[in-house]
Structure formats: structure tokens, C-alpha cells
């Protein structure tokens, strides 16, 4: 697809500010505009109605660090080198924020960054040192040999999923509200594994009733800090602000005062969670073998779910409660976004602001009897909310884009909004603003990568999604010999329940999709050396 399409309907190519809103681990179907019914999301829904809503946006990875690195670099994990959580993005990796900074944009990232590992007792990473140092940023090497503010950001304030550790939010809570610290769920256990301790009414893992007042919760802290930074910007200056909410990622410990918004007892089970164990297991048995092995507690392939938790033990009411708490967190995010937008509007600044809303990856949230995330490439993890509300001053046309798009396109799109074409190192193309823009080109395909190697268990997979198919190929690993795969026909099987990988009638489709993965593998982009795994997360 041609670059520069966003500018085709832009009244002005410069002077547009960018508010980039991300959440963490949020599924497509948790947003009202996407058909979600559990959480009320009027603010996000309005952005969707006024702008472009993408019905199939895919991450480059279904875990945080590789996916977030792709947003910043516009590159796939196999290019930027962050192949799994715990691998740091090189300090001089390419960054769209550096490019925008060069264009004169003031740049900020407020909330969850996670380009560098959290578990860092040696204090080796900048993200973990800024709050202690009390500075907004540090000078660091930039891509191409120059030096500048850390990864291109003038202002950095960090938060993650709790109140432990060295980041700004945790420090603020410890200093200002120490009495509320105990309400938060301990994300990690004594062995620094993801905690499996159950809580709430049903004992679901990573659930806790948290008596923190909503105004002290990280969702509102991120919005408050964003508002303060935006208010500090001069009237005539351009800015790029990445507002990054840590929720609705587990733990599910929203302020207890808000739980009445969604009563778990009223929550219907997810459509992809058959209540009968036999049915769930029959669905899992159609997939590659590690699905059932994890469900049964025979293998733990990655760090991102509690190592001691066995998915087969999860009850229907636990699924209901997790979904209810997730919806509460999504509603709080929606309201926080509403506060930020209202502030901009009140000050007459919203006209020139492009707003993007998306998430880094999804959450299984009960699908197939599973929770959390891992090497399980189905819609729960792969299909993301993505909304682009272009600046009203650019006279945008509202649209629904059904062609598959990827988070790898964000960097090119931000630069396009800023009036600049993407540099050579950007792999993603500018997001289309309508289906018509892509109708004449070959049907677009998007790719998600997974490579993990943790304590003797190696898993490698690549997934390509088109309008018609979701196709996954497994590489050689601890549980796969390289011959396995999954093929789902999204037209007949939108829930990805029937694996057609070995169906002779689909051989031609499978071969074509395999060819697309081969093309992805052989793309000419110069690759960074795969980084070292230096922490679990």
C-alpha cells in the first residue's frame, strides 16, 4: 500500500498533535464499539464513531515487550531483536519518538513502557532508574550514532501493574499513600514467579479486592500525569504523548468501590468457554499439543502465566469473576480517557489532535478454558481494539476497516500524521483509512511471531492472518517437530474451533499461507541480533 495516504485527506500536514493511548492485554471484544456488552465504553465508542475503527488489528507478538518494541520501532520482533519478555530493546534501537523529536515535537510517555525488563535488582536499565534519579529523561545513544533524550522522549513517568518496584507510580504510592499499598495484589510470589494465589469471591488467580480509592489507582494516576504534561505544553507546539495504561492486564484488583459496576454473578460465560470440561478438552485436542499440555498442568512454556496454576482447575464462576473485574478496569480506563479528552477540549486543543487507541496484545479470558497469555495464537490474544480518530481539523471521514492491519504500522502512521514519510528502517506501512485504499492491492496479511526459551522449554511459531484465514506454523521446539500447525477458516469458524491444518481440501490455502510466512521470513530488512534473555519479564 502506498505511503502518505493519510495525508490525502489531511487539510494540513503539520500542526497535528498525536495522543497515542494504549492499554495492556485488552481484547477486541471488550470495547462497546466492537460489540462488547460487558463494559460500558462510551468515550472509546465515540472515538470509533468519529474516526476509523479497525475490525482486525493484530500485534507482532502476544506478550508485552516485543509488541511494545514494535510500536516504537515499526519493526517485527525478528527485526528489532526483542524476541520475548525479558529481552531489552537495545538502547540505540530505532524509535519513532526520536523521529518526531527531530521534527520539533515535544514527546512524552506516561504509564507503562516496558522496553526494558522490570526485574532489575542491579538497576541496569534506565526505565528503572528515572524515578529514583528524579529526572524526566536522560541523554542516551540514538539510532544512527547520535545522542539524545532516552528513546526520543523528553518526559517519562512510568507505572506498571502494582505498587512494588522503582517506577514512578509505585514510588508515589509509597510516599503519598502508604496505607493503601496492602490492598494491591502481589503480582509475583516469593520465587518471583507469577503468583497463583486466588482471591475475590471465587478464588481465581491474580484476583483481589483492593480497597484503594479510585483516585489513587494507576489508571487515574496515568490520566492525571498526562493531563499535567499536556497542560504544560505551549499553545503553538506540536506534541506526541503516549498515554499507556497498565490495565486491564492481570492482576485483576481494581478499586473495590467500583465492583458494583459489573456483578460477576450476572456475567455470561464467554462464547468460547464451553462449560463442560469434555467439550473444552475436545477443542483443545484439535490444536497443537502444547495447548492441552498446559491446560492439564503438564508443561509451562512461558513466564507470563502462574507457573503453579493448572488451567483445568478453573471454574466457570472464576471465569465470570475475571471477566467482570476486567470489565470494571476497562470502564475505568474509558473514563480516564474521557477526562484527558475533556481537558483538551475545554482548552480548545482537541481540533488538531489525532487520537489512537489500541492495546499491546489480548487476553485469553476463559477461551478454551485458559487464562492469561502464551503461545496460543487465536483471537483472544491476536485480535485487538484499534481506533484512529484523526484530528477534526483534517476533516476525516469515519470508516470501518475490515482488512487486517498490524501494530507494526503505528510508527509509519504517526510519522505520516506529522507530515513525514517513514525512514528505511520502518517495516510497517501507514494504516489504511478505508477498505477502498487496499481493495486494489493483494489482500493484506499480518504476521505475529512467537519465540520462547525458558528453562528447557522452547516454543516457536509464526501466524499469518488474512481476511479468510488464521494460519499458524510451529517450528522445531521442545513439544513440536516442525510439522504441526493450525488453520482456521475465519468465515465459517470465527471462534477458531475447527483446525483444518490436515484437511486435504484446504491444502492450496495452506500452501499459500505458508508461502506468505516464508516471504515474511525472507523479507530484506536488516535484522538486529536477537537480544539476550536477561530476566523473566
Amino acid at each position, binding site marked *: 500500500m502506498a505511503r502518505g495516504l493519510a495525508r490525502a485527506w489531511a487539510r494540513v500536514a503539520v500542526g497535528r498533535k498525536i495522543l497515542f493511548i494504549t492499554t495492556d492485554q485488552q481484547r477486541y471484544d471488550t470495547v462497546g464499539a466492537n460489540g462488547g456488552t460487558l463494559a460500558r465504553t462510551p468515550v472509546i465508542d465515540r472515538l470509533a464513531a468519529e474516526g476509523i475503527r479497525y475490525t482486525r488489528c493484530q500485534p507482532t507478538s502476544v506478550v508485552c515487550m516485543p509488541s511494545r518494541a514494535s510500536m516504537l520501532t515499526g519493526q517485527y520482533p525478528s527485526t528489532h531483536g526483542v524476541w520475548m519478555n*525479558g529481552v531489552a530493546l537495545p538502547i540505540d534501537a530505532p524509535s519513532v519518538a526520536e523521529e518526531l523529536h527531530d521534527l520539533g515535537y515535544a514527546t512524552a510517555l506516561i504509564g507503562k513502557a516496558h522496553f526494558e*525488563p522490570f*526485574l*532489575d*535488582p*542491579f*538497576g*541496569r536499565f534506565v526505565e*528503572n*532508574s528515572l524515578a*529514583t534519579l528524579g529526572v524526566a529523561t536522560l541523554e542516551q545513544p540514538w539510532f544512527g550514532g547520535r545522542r539524545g533524550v532516552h528513546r526520543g522522549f523528553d518526559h517519562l513517568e512510568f507505572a506498571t501493574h502494582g505498587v512494588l518496584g*522503582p517506577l514512578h507510580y509505585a514510588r508515589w504510592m509509597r510516599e503519598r499513600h502508604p496505607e493503601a499499598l496492602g490492598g494491591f495484589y502481589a503480582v509475583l510470589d*516469593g*520465587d*518471583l*514467579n507469577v503468583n497463583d494465589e486466588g482471591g475475590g469471591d471465587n478464588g481465581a488467580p491474580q484476583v483481589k479486592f483492593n480497597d484503594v480509592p479510585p483516585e489513587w489507582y494507576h489508571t487515574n494516576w496515568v490520566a492525571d500525569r498526562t493531563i499535567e504534561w499536556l497542560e504544560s505544553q505551549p499553545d503553538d507546539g506540536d506534541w506526541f504523548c503516549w498515554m499507556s495504561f497498565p490495565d486491564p492486564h492481570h492482576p485483576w484488583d481494581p478499586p473495590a468501590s467500583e465492583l458494583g459496576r459489573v456483578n460477576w454473578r450476572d456475567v455470561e460465560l464467554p462464547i468460547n468457554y464451553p462449560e463442560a470440561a469434555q467439550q473444552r478438552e475436545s477443542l483443545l485436542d484439535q490444536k497443537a499439543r502444547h495447548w492441552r*499440555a498446559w491446560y492439564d498442568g*503438564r*508443561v509451562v512454556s512461558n*513466564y507470563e502465566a502462574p507457573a503453579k496454576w493448572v488451567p483445568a482447575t478453573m471454574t466457570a464462576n472464576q471465569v465470570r469473576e475475571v471477566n467482570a473485574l476486567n470489565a470494571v478496569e476497562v470502564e475505568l480506563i474509558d473514563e480516564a480517557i474521557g477526562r484527558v479528552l475533556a481537558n483538551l477540549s475545554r482548552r480548545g486543543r482537541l481540533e488538531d489532535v489525532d487520537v489512537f487507541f489500541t492495546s499491546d496484545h489480548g487476553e485469553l479470558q476463559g477461551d478454551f478454558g485458559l487464562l492469561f497469555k502464551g503461545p496460543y495464537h487465536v483471537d483472544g490474544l491476536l485480535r485487538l481494539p484499534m481506533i484512529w480518530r484523526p484530528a477534526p481539523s483534517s476533516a476525516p471521514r469515519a470508516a470501518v476497516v475490515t482488512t487486517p492491519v498490524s501494530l507494526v504500522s503505528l510508527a509509519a502512521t504517526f510519522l505520516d500524521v506529522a507530515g513525514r514519510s517513514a525512514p528505511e528502517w520502518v517495516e510497517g506501512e501507514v494504516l489504511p483509512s478505508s477498505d477502498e485504499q487496499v481493495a486494489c492491492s493483494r489482500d493484506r496479511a499480518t504476521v505475529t511471531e512467537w519465540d520462547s526459551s525458558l*528453562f*528447557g*522449554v522452547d516454543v516457536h511459531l509464526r501466524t499469518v492472518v488474512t481476511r479468510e484465514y488464521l494460519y499458524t506454523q510451529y517450528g522445531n521446539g*521442545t*513439544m513440536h517437530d516442525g510439522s504441526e500447525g493450525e488453520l482456521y477458516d475465519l468465515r465459517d469458524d470465527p471462534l477458531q474451533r475447527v483446525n483444518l491444518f490436515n484437511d486435504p481440501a484446504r491444502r492450496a490455502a495452506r500452501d499459500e499461507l505458508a508461502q506468505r510466512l516464508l516471504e515474511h521470513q525472507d523479507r530484506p530488512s536488516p535484522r538486529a541480533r536477537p537480544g*539476550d*534473555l*536477561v*530476566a*523473566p519479564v
Partner: protein
Amino acid sequence: MIKEYVMASLRHERLIEAAPQDVWNIVRRPQSITDWFPGVASCRVDGRRRVLTLATGLEVPEEILSVDEGLRRFAYRIVAPAYKFHLGTIDVLSVGAHSLCVYSTTAEPDTLALIIAGATIGALEEIKRQAESWRAVSRERGQE
């Protein structure tokens, strides 16, 4: 498919263009760790006991197990309560005129092994940098 080991045992190594004795001289003194292990701000050594203070302020008590000049092997263990077990070894091996420096970490819980071993990568880089810089300086002086 179940893990076939008791605990995580990880290893990193660097080929260093310097004589093994020169590399060994960098790591052999317990108190020298602040010079080559990134993130170790200070340390106190009292007999076989060494206490590191990390850049984050965390204190890590250790026991020195072996400083073997013949084998060029340094062995130690972290004795902090968070560790059920830890063994760290640094071996400097001869590879022709050069050296192979091997830093091994065996620990339980697994996650702590990964974090410590991850940090040893930076330590190896610094050991290599120092040894090769020293070699370059020595050569320069030799030419003088």
C-alpha cells in the same frame, strides 16, 4: 515434557583476546567485583564473606567458596534468604593465546537464576573490555 532438571543452570561465555592470566587478574580478587560487574555499587569483604550493595540499594550477602589460582576458577554462592540455592563460577580457560571466560549460574528459584545470569552478560562484556584494553595498552608500551 516435564522439566528434567532440579533447578536452572545457565552459562554465558566470551572469547577474549588477552592472555588467560591477564583476564584472571581482573576477576581473582573478591573485592574487585565493583570494577567489572555492572550494577554492583560497592562491596565489603571479610574473610570468606562478601556483601555486595547493588545500584538499587539491595544488599546481597555471599560466601566465597574457591579462588583457585591453578585452575583460574572463582566460585561463590549467594546466601540471601530469597535463594534456596546458588552457585556462581567464573572460569578463565586458555584458547590458544587467548582466553575463554565462562560465567555459570546455578540457582533456585529459576527466576533468580535468570536474573543473575542475565546480569553476568554485562559482567563478561566489561571483563572483556578491560582485558582487551589492557592488552592494547601493553602492546603500545611494548612498541615504545
